[in-house]
């Protein structure tokens, strides 16, 4: 048992990593394709249990270091888990644990039966890639797992081609932008490696101390741009709306809730654990470059979202805006701002997951992804409509939901750091989200249902239950902030402490 616990940090990675290839060999068409789905669900639950155990262990007893191959860092690869990792780890595996059972109904409708086991193998790989990025303490290992998650994501997005060929071009654009981003990241790592001779993040920090030179500055810039591309940071977001809109619905649920958040996490990790606060250029980059771009993203993307007809694309544009909130919070350069960003990162994953799940359920039953499909939904699919409305309220930031918590955190961080302007901008752009969300909610509740309404049934239980759990999380964490806010504050303190 002690042996088992000692190996805990690596379990959420190695178990899905071994399970994913095995999934490929499972029979795809027996039992209506249930076997690969059930297997993948089970694996994701194990990964979630391990992640939750790690979070508990880190929260109660402090950060963990795990040495791959029994070589101590910086010689070997290290898993270094503190609260920030553990929180994102739990988010990713938690969303996956809900997305896998959720996917069963819609994926069977959207892809060919022959492909089911390959699909679930690929989805597990995507999950493992994201988890691996979050958990590692080695800079180059980040790149390897970023590529695992990216490659699997390209293929998963392209599977939407059975419904709409635009999934192919969306996937290809994503591939080109993603590869450029990853290569920028590698260039940045190369510059940092050349300046220090090491790849371990904590060791990079030690080696870089007091060594401000053009190599380090350029290296940080390349890492920021590379991960900014992956995070769909404002001017580099063009790949994302189409990729999410045309991907199979269940894939969009998982990606929207996790993928960009992980990239934001990597930005936080490199900013604080690797570069640290003792470099003026890092602070200046956030103050004069990232913050303005974040604000522009908040407004531009929200305005574009208002005019979208495709619901998934509207939600994707909304995500671009929400990424802006997170980056804005980081750019404050205060513990409070960082904590607010981490809280919003976690909360936004939960609300976007719920919204995309509702959209997927509507696409599954009504067969439409445009706003028209939502007409009169409150009468046709009441549970789904209720889930969507609660998640939408959360996105807008109504008290009692997680959206309120994270916006409140961001606002107080803005005012406390003397950036009243940022506070007003956050409120103003929230009003924009009222417009685009309100439009859909109005269609759902007030508009009459189209004639064919008799044929539409409520979504199946396999969809409703995961959706309900996510919505419940939206409310639970909105009322009880112990887990998210307290942990995020402690995570921010330790990140900032390590940076100083």
């Amino acid at each position, binding site marked *: 048992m002690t042996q088992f616990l000692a190996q805990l940090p690596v379990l959420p990675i*190695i178990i899905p990593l071994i399970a994913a*290839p*095995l999934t490929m*060999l499972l029979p795809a068409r027996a039992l209506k394709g249930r076997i690969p789905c059930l297997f993948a669900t089970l694996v994701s639950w194990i990964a979630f249990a391990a992640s939750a155990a790690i979070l508990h262990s880190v929260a109660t007893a402090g950060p963990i270091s795990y040495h791959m*191959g029994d070589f101590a860092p910086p010689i070997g690869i290290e898993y270094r888990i503190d609260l920030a990792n553990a929180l994102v780890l739990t988010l990713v595996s938690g969303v996956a644990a809900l997305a896998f059972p959720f996917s069963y109904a819609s994926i069977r409708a959207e892809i060919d039966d022959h492909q089911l086991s390959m699909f679930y193998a690929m989805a597990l790989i995507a999950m493992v890639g994201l988890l691996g990025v979050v958990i590692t303490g080695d800079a180059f290992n980040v790149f390897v797992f970023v590529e695992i998650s990216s490659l699997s994501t390209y293929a998963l997005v392209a599977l939407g081609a059975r419904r709409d060929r635009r999934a192919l071009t969306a996937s290809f654009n994503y591939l080109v932008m993603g590869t450029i981003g990853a290569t920028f990241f590698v260039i940045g790592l190369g510059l940092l490696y050349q300046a220090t001779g090491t790849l371990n993040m904590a060791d990079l920090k030690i080696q870089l101390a007091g060594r401000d030179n053009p190599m380090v500055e350029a290296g940080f810039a390349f890492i920021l741009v590379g991960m900014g591309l992956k995070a769909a940071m404002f001017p580099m977001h063009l790949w994302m709306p189409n990729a999410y809109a045309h991907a199979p619905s269940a894939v969009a649920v998982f990606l929207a809730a996790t993928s960009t958040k992980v990239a934001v996490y990597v930005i936080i990790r490199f900013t604080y654990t690797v570069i640290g606060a003792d470099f003026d250029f890092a602070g200046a980059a956030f103050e004069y470059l990232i913050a303005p771009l974040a604000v522009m993203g908040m407004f531009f993307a929200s305005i574009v979202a208002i005019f979208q007809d495709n619901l998934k694309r509207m939600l994707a544009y909304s995500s671009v805006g929400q990424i802006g909130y997170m980056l804005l919070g980081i750019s404050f350069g205060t513990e409070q701002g960082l904590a607010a960003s981490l809280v919003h990162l976690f909360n936004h994953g939960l609300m976007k997951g719920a919204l995309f799940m509702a959209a997927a359920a509507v696409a599954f039953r009504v067969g439409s992804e445009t706003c028209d499909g939502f007409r009169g939904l409150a009468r046709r699919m009441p549970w789904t409509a209720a889930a969507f409305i609660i998640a939408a309220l959360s996105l807008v930031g109504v008290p009692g939901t997680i959206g309120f918590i994270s916006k409140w955190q961001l606002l107080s961080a803005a005012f406390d750091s003397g950036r009243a302007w940022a506070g007003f901008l956050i409120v103003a752009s929230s009003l924009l989200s009222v417009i685009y969300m309100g439009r859909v909610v109005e269609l759902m509740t007030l508009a009459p249902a189209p004639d064919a309404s008799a044929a539409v049934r409520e979504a199946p239980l396999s969809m409703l239950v995961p959706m309900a759990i996510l919505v419940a999380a939206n409310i639970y964490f909105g009322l009880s902030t112990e887990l998210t806010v307290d942990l995020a504050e402690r995570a921010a303190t330790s990140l900032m402490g390590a940076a100083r």
Partner: protein
Amino acid sequence: MSIEHLVLRVVIKILFAPILLFALYVQFHGDYGAGGGFQAGVIFAVAFILHALIMGLDETKRVLPAAALKAMMVVGFLFYAGTGAATMLLGGNLLGYDAIAPNSDHNEGQHYGILLVEFGVGMAVASTMLMIFYQFAGREPEIRDEDW
């Protein structure tokens, strides 16, 4: 059958075995010189790709069916990951090969570990590369004349 094809067929028949032998050499000589599992896997795949280019894909698929390749991809990867898991079960950390032979003076654990892992890489790479080639070659072209 035209005479050029005959020449090519004879050449590939003569070359096929030496290429595979070379792949094996690269596979197991990686500790000593340049090369290793990845390079060996690629060479192994190239031998079969040449075979397919000259003898036709169907012929190659008779020798090495796609279903077998699929299994090889999985087994190759699991060789690697399984070695890592085995070291965990033997009391080491993930991929801590010393746990394979804990009392060895001459790093036997490391030797076995590297051998197993490189074999896994070779198998996974060879089968994956070949599988990718099968998929491209098996797709029927629908090319229009004006595109030439």
